[in-house]
């Protein structure tokens, strides 16, 4: 009897256990699982790879390359001891050993190490960045005694051409992104830093180039260390960002930059048809892979300054075609002649004795100041100013870069008609002007990003040029091109000729105080003259003359684009 009761009690006891276990393990299972998950899971937002920047033929101008870093994994030092200070000391020792082996400073202090162990023990700590092959093998060989290290590859921005197009390409920095909206709700424990464009196209197209982020989940043990990094339970990989294709042609860019080497100045080559920028450079330049920002900031030559789009210069005689076109629009006779006597209302001409009788064509060819000052008086300053504005001066071109200068045409002065005075233009604006003259009046919007075949591009403003004047302007410029660009003799006195005919205008703008005058020497051009494809503008600071300084350089660039005519 008693035994029966006892059996009942015991059975009841087991039942109680079973029921409670059912409640805990089945009913409450989700809650407990969640408790556990909160305890053991860490979520990290990882970065997708940044897209590349390519030239018009697919050559890589900017890409992400793998930088191999030696990183320290805090969880490997758990075996050093239970106390934090012991672990940090053990890690520090190993870092010192590696420093000796690699003969390189790590820049990690005891304090920094301790802080990392305390706050970010889930993350690897980068100790040495960008190991070369020798260093890599050293670290790998000493894996046994140097426990706690691992090699991690990190995305680093790399420009295979070094300094080419450095101003337009720009550079990136590493930044932990601020999460918005949905992402902020996901409550990551750690957000990995991303590459973010700080200048140039990297900055302008930053969102476009950025990759799609991924997620990585790891389990941590009771001490907060990651267990089994390779077998991490969850996460999605990020995506690489799309490539950015430019209209820039690296070979033309190289030719342009070669001509600017050693001088201060800028040059732009654009398409007369759609405004695509084929080459654009500013000098001095810097190597995107190795530059020091602080050093460049302190450099008095201001290498960080993109003179092609931000440099404001007086255009000098290159403005004269605009004056001419303004005159034509105002109704001035294109065939009118004027006798240059060498001086007009106090301003001298380049030829002190005067050019004699000139018409519009010959005046352009000789770049006669007095002719154009006289023409300006006939046309009216406000008309010329208006023409200038219509051709894009005084406002930004709208190129896809930040930091463009608008230049300025006002206040209008007498000298503005010949490209001096308060008239300020950028090399880019002058290239647009040259292209407008070349293509019959379309003021194009320059663009660095390649225009895709399916893209609808808004048509450019079409200006009306007075036909007779326009013809004269073109002829005049063709004469200039013929004279300064078409043919030349090399060191061995052999005559060379460009494969195409050109049209051009020189310019020499004087500036500075009377006792220290310098000259900004210009050349604008387009080619081929009969069927224009490209327009070019080039300015060299501190030069001799437009023809002498800028001319040969422009010619070399055209030679690079079109080649020479074969000699028979």
């Amino acid at each position, binding site marked *: 009897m008693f035994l029966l009761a006892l*059996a009942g009690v015991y059975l009841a006891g087991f039942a109680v256990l079973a029921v409670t276990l059912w409640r805990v393990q089945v009913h409450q*299972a989700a809650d407990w699982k969640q408790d*556990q998950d909160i305890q*053991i899971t860490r979520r990290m937002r990882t970065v997708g790879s940044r897209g590349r920047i390519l030239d018009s033929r697919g050559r890589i101008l900017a890409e992400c390359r793998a930088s191999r870093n030696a990183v320290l994994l805090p969880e490997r030092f758990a075996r050093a001891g239970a106390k934090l200070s012991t672990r940090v000391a053990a890690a520090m020792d190993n870092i010192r050993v590696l420093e000796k082996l690699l003969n390189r400073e790590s820049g990690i202090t005891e304090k920094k190490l301790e802080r990392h162990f305390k706050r970010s023990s889930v993350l690897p700590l980068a100790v040495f960045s960008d190991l070369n092959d020798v260093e890599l093998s050293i670290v790998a060989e000493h894996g046994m005694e140097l426990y706690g290290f691992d090699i991690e590859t990190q995305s680093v921005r790399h420009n295979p051409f070094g300094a080419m197009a450095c101003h337009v390409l720009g550079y990136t920095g590493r930044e932990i992104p601020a999460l918005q909206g949905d992402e902020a709700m996901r409550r990551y424990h750690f957000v990995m830093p991303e590459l973010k464009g700080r200048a140039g196209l990297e900055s302008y197209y930053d969102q476009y180039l950025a990759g799609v982020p991924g997620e990585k989940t790891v389990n941590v*043990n009771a001490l907060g260390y990651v267990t089994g990094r390779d077998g991490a339970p969850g996460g999605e990989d990020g995506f690489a960002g799309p490539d950015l294709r430019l209209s820039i042609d690296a070979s033309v860019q190289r030719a342009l930059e070669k001509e600017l080497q050693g001088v201060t100045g800028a040059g732009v080559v654009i398409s007369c048809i759609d405004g695509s920028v084929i080459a654009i450079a500013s000098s001095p330049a810097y190597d995107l892979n190795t530059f020091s920002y602080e050093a460049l900031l302190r450099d008095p030559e201001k290498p960080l300054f993109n003179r092609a789009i931000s440099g404001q210069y007086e255009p000098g005689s290159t403005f004269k075609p605009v004056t001419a076109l303004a005159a034509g629009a105002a109704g001035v006779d294109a065939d009118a002649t004027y006798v240059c006597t060498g001086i007009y209302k106090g301003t001298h001409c380049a030829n002190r004795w005067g050019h004699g009788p000139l018409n519009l064509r010959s005046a352009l060819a000789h770049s006669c100041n007095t002719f154009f000052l006289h023409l300006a008086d006939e046309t009216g300053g406000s008309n010329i100013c208006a023409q200038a504005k219509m051709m894009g001066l005084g406002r930004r071109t709208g190129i896809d870069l930040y930091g463009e200068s608008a230049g300025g045409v006002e206040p209008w002065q007498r000298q503005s008609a010949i490209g001096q005075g308060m008239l300020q233009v950028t090399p880019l604006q002058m290239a647009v002007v040259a292209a407008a003259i070349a293509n019959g009046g379309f003021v194009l919007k320059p663009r660095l990003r390649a225009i895709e075949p399916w893209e609808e591009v808004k048509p450019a403003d079409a200006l009306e040029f007075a036909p007779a004047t326009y013809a004269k302007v073109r002829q005049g410029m063709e004469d200039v091109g013929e004279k300064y660009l078409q043919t030349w003799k090399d060191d061995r006195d052999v005559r060379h000729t460009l494969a195409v005919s050109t049209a051009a205008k020189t310019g020499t703008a004087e500036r500075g105080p009377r006792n220290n005058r310098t000259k900004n020497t210009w050349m604008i051009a387009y080619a081929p003259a009969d069927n224009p494809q490209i327009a070019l503008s080039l300015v060299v600071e501190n030069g001799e003359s437009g023809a002498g300084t800028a001319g040969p350089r422009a010619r070399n660039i055209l030679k690079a684009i079109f080649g020479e005519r074969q000699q028979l």
Partner: protein
Amino acid sequence: MKFIDYLKRFDYLSFIAMILLIAMGGVFIKSAGAARSSLLLQNLWQTHLATAGFAIALYFVLSMLDWRKIFDFGAVPVYAASLAMLVLVLVAGTDRFGGKRWLWFFQPSEIGKFAVVLLLAHVFGHLAMKNPDEHKHSAGTDDEGETLEKPLPLAGFKGFLVATGIIGVPALLILVEPDLGTALVLAPASIVMLFAAKVWLRGVATLVILAAVAAGLVLGTIAKAESLPPAEQQKIYSRLPFKKHQISRLRIFVNPDADPYGSGWTLNQAKIAIGSGSFAGKGIGKGDQKRLGYLPPSVSMNDFIFAVLAEEAGFAGAAAMLTLFAVIVLRGLWTAAKAADGRGRLFAVGISTIIFFHVYENVAMSIGLMPITGLPLPFISAGRTFLVALVASLGVMQSINIRAYQSSETERN
């Protein structure tokens, strides 16, 4: 007896349940050991199974012997020996986990538990007869050497005193080690045995009620104290006659959030382990709590091995385990019912109670139903002394079971 009879009467059910539980022990000790850093602990499951092998051999030997002879020749010597060891361990024992509990490689307190049951059964067996007349024919003699016509000796208060002596001396020695949990488990075992033998029934019942009330008061005080600010708490706790860690265990029983980084941590991690196991478990060897060290490694192989089992085998595994234990306990009571004499009956009751209480306390404390004590899970927790003593006792019970109907037969050995 003939071997064929042995085979016919052998209780296979309880034997197989025991083997299965021992196997489970091997599996989960191995799993828990995998998270440990010392090779010794990683291979502890091999020691466990080897010890089990030895114990099972002992089981068979004991089951083939006549249990009455074991009682006659063994009860007192075993008890005396364990008393001696308990004294010895206090003097010359190895210090581990804050207490002198080990003598060489075994724990005297684990043997003590069974020795007490054995002696109690031997001494008071005559009071637990199915038929009081049978004791005249029993092979055992009663301690007092009194004549058999007098009222059953030791049935009254005097018996109670004797019982207290038999239980109390080793209990005290165990308490001093200190090992409150083991000492405590003697209480239900002996109380049930005393009830079964009807020793001073009324007195014992009263004492039990009083003890329950006292326990209730203690828990109530602690519950009340938990809702007070810390300063007040200290005043109350310092007045209770318990050690610090015992108080903290009682506190977290009452208030699970009380000691989040001490005892509360273990309990919470155990609950997480058990809860996250859900129905089917996470798979043997794949338990996260033990793998990641949230369940403290020092307890994952013994006291809290159930948490590992529950996380890895789920409710299904836990329920299977409980079923196997239920089989053993209930078969034990069945053996008690058909035991040839009172000693066997008492012994079976005592052993079954010990097993039940261990299982109940161990599982309940892992889920917060009972306060944490150091009671291991029979067959499954790593602990060689306990395993051998337990299996040996079951061997004796098997002998009792086999010879159950021999009282009316001619004695044959």
